[in-house]
């Protein structure tokens, strides 16, 4: 198994395209860094009057709470109030000067790009063996087809993690160089069960990256499935990228009209809605979403493996 994964890894790393992808990711992170540095120099953001401003904000929010009755928005407003009050009590300014963590947070935009590249790999990893005819020599080995397919899927996931790690590590390094470490500890403030708690920023950000990549993982899995079932990388790429870019927004639009939208994959991929804001359809819960994700995940793999194992190979 390990050998199979090494094989897949080698095949990809001998392609020029892989380096272009890594290069593009680094470039985007550098781009974000350059822009922010420029902004920082042009207009320093630190606001000495932040305490008054926060108090004003809290007062506004409270007034808003009294005037409006809407579950979703209420919980968000309550959360904002709690966090802002916590900041006043503990002397934690909301937007301190730019530092390594704020940069790593901003750089998570590049996760979309990593998602894109992971989908490209997922769409091609099985189909390309068919189109190149190399599938024959690959399957005539004392290794079951399931193991071959599994090694390919693991490779896809590893690539995703690899790209995320590149973004994370590189933006940490670049953030430290451009903006430096924060003067004092800047914890992330989370609102859990009506309590404000401090979280380590580095760990919070890793969590954020991983949460962001659930969507990515699901679409990559789907691309992989289409690739294994239809042996056609353009088809897999086309469908997956289409859904990757417009899936969530279309689902969001539909969600105001139909209740069944909650069964659509994209209504469930963003788990952060359960801590910030609210889900697309009110009746949804975190448990529901996780269940749906698992069902989709298993369905994609059942299709991919079921068909790949039985298929007559005449490429």
């Amino acid at each position: 198994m390990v050998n199979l994964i090494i094989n897949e890894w080698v095949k990809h790393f001998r392609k020029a395209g892989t380096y272009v992808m890594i290069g593009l990711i680094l470039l985007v992170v550098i781009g974000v860094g350059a822009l922010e540095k420029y902004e920082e120099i042009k207009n320093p953001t630190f606001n000495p009057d932040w305490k008054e401003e926060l108090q004003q904000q809290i007062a506004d929010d409270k007034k808003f709470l009294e005037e409006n009755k809407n579950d979703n928005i209420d919980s968000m407003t309550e959360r904002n109030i709690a966090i802002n009050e916590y900041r006043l009590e503990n002397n934690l300014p909301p937007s301190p000067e730019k530092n390594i963590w704020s940069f790593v947070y901003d750089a998570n935009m590049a996760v979309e790009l990593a998602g894109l590249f992971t989908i490209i790999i997922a769409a091609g990893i099985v189909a390309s063996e068919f189109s190149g005819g190399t599938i024959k020599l690959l399957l005539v080995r004392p290794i079951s087809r399931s193991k071959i397919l599994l090694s390919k899927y693991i490779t896809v996931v590893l690539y995703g993690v690899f790209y995320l790690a590149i973004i994370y590590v590189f933006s940490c390094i670049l953030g430290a160089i451009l903006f430096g470490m924060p003067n004092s500890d800047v914890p992330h403030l989370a609102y859990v069960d009506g309590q404000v708690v401090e979280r380590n920023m580095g760990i919070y950000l890793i969590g954020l990256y991983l949460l962001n990549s659930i969507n990515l993982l699901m679409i990559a899995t789907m691309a992989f499935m289409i690739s294994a079932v239809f042996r056609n990388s353009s088809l897999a790429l086309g469908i997956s990228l289409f859904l990757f870019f417009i899936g969530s927004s279309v689902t969001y639009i539909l969600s105001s009209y139909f209740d069944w939208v909650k069964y659509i994959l994209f209504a469930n991929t963003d788990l952060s809605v359960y801590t910030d804001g609210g889900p697309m359809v009110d009746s949804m819960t975190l448990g529901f979403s996780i269940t749906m994700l698992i069902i989709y995940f298993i369905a994609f793999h059942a299709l991919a493996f079921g068909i790949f194992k039985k298929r007559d190979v005449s490429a």
Partner: protein
Amino acid sequence: MEAVLKLENVSKKIGKKTIIDNLSLSVQPGEVFGFLGPNGAGKTTTIRMIVGLMKITQGDIAICGKSIQKDFEEAVSHIGAIVENPEMYKHLTGYQNLVQYARMHKGVSKERINEVIQSVGLTNRINEKVKTYSLGMRQRLGLAQCLLHEPKLLILDEPTNGLDPAGIREIRDQLRTLTKEKGMSVIVSSHLLSEMEMMCDRIAIIQNGRLVDVQNVKDFLDTDQLAFVVETGPLDNSVTWLKEDWGVEILENGFSVLARKEEIPALLKRLIDSGVDLYGAKQVSKSLEDRFLEITDMAGGQING
């Protein structure tokens, strides 16, 4: 001795079409076995089923006693195969390709890889990318790939496709060494009889997915009656006695005859005595070729639908 390969009543249907119909045969250790048949006869399909690329609709195939359907990993570990063209990863070098395959088998050492590269004559080009290889070089690399793990059964689908005469000869010699010295069995497929005759011990003639006949090449060459083609000038009235006494078939530049080897000198002597110009006489295994052509001609040269 246990057969290295055994096909028992194997059939393959795709949709409603029967592509392979109730095929049974077995291949012995150390034997070179040929699949001979016109285009579309089902040679490649049979090979695909043997190596597990295609599912078997009916019947079973065993390699060294292990069923390819029930015991795939064990069965296929005895096989090295090229199915149609040996497509490799074009963006890797020949060597990197071989390393890929070596990783998928147990116990293939670096030395073994180099040894195989040497034996297929690719040492000088092995570190170039496969996309720069010629067809013949790809065939050689394909051969290297299936020899790595020293299989008991080598399956080569049209191995000489794209090889130059020297390359064909090398393959022939190599197959001989592999089978006679290492006891490997080999299956080769081809639609060229002349080629098969030189390589194979036995030849299965396949047509329309059915096994028409299995011919033992050596028996065949050893029979009393051999076929000879005699090239001559104008035969004039020698035609009469040639036809009556020898039953020859007149060709454009001479004739062909079925005879025992020791009868030939007498025939040639009489020809010369009759004043016919004699340019040459060579032995051909006529009746095997006849048989093959007979079979292939049945469809009037058309690919069978």
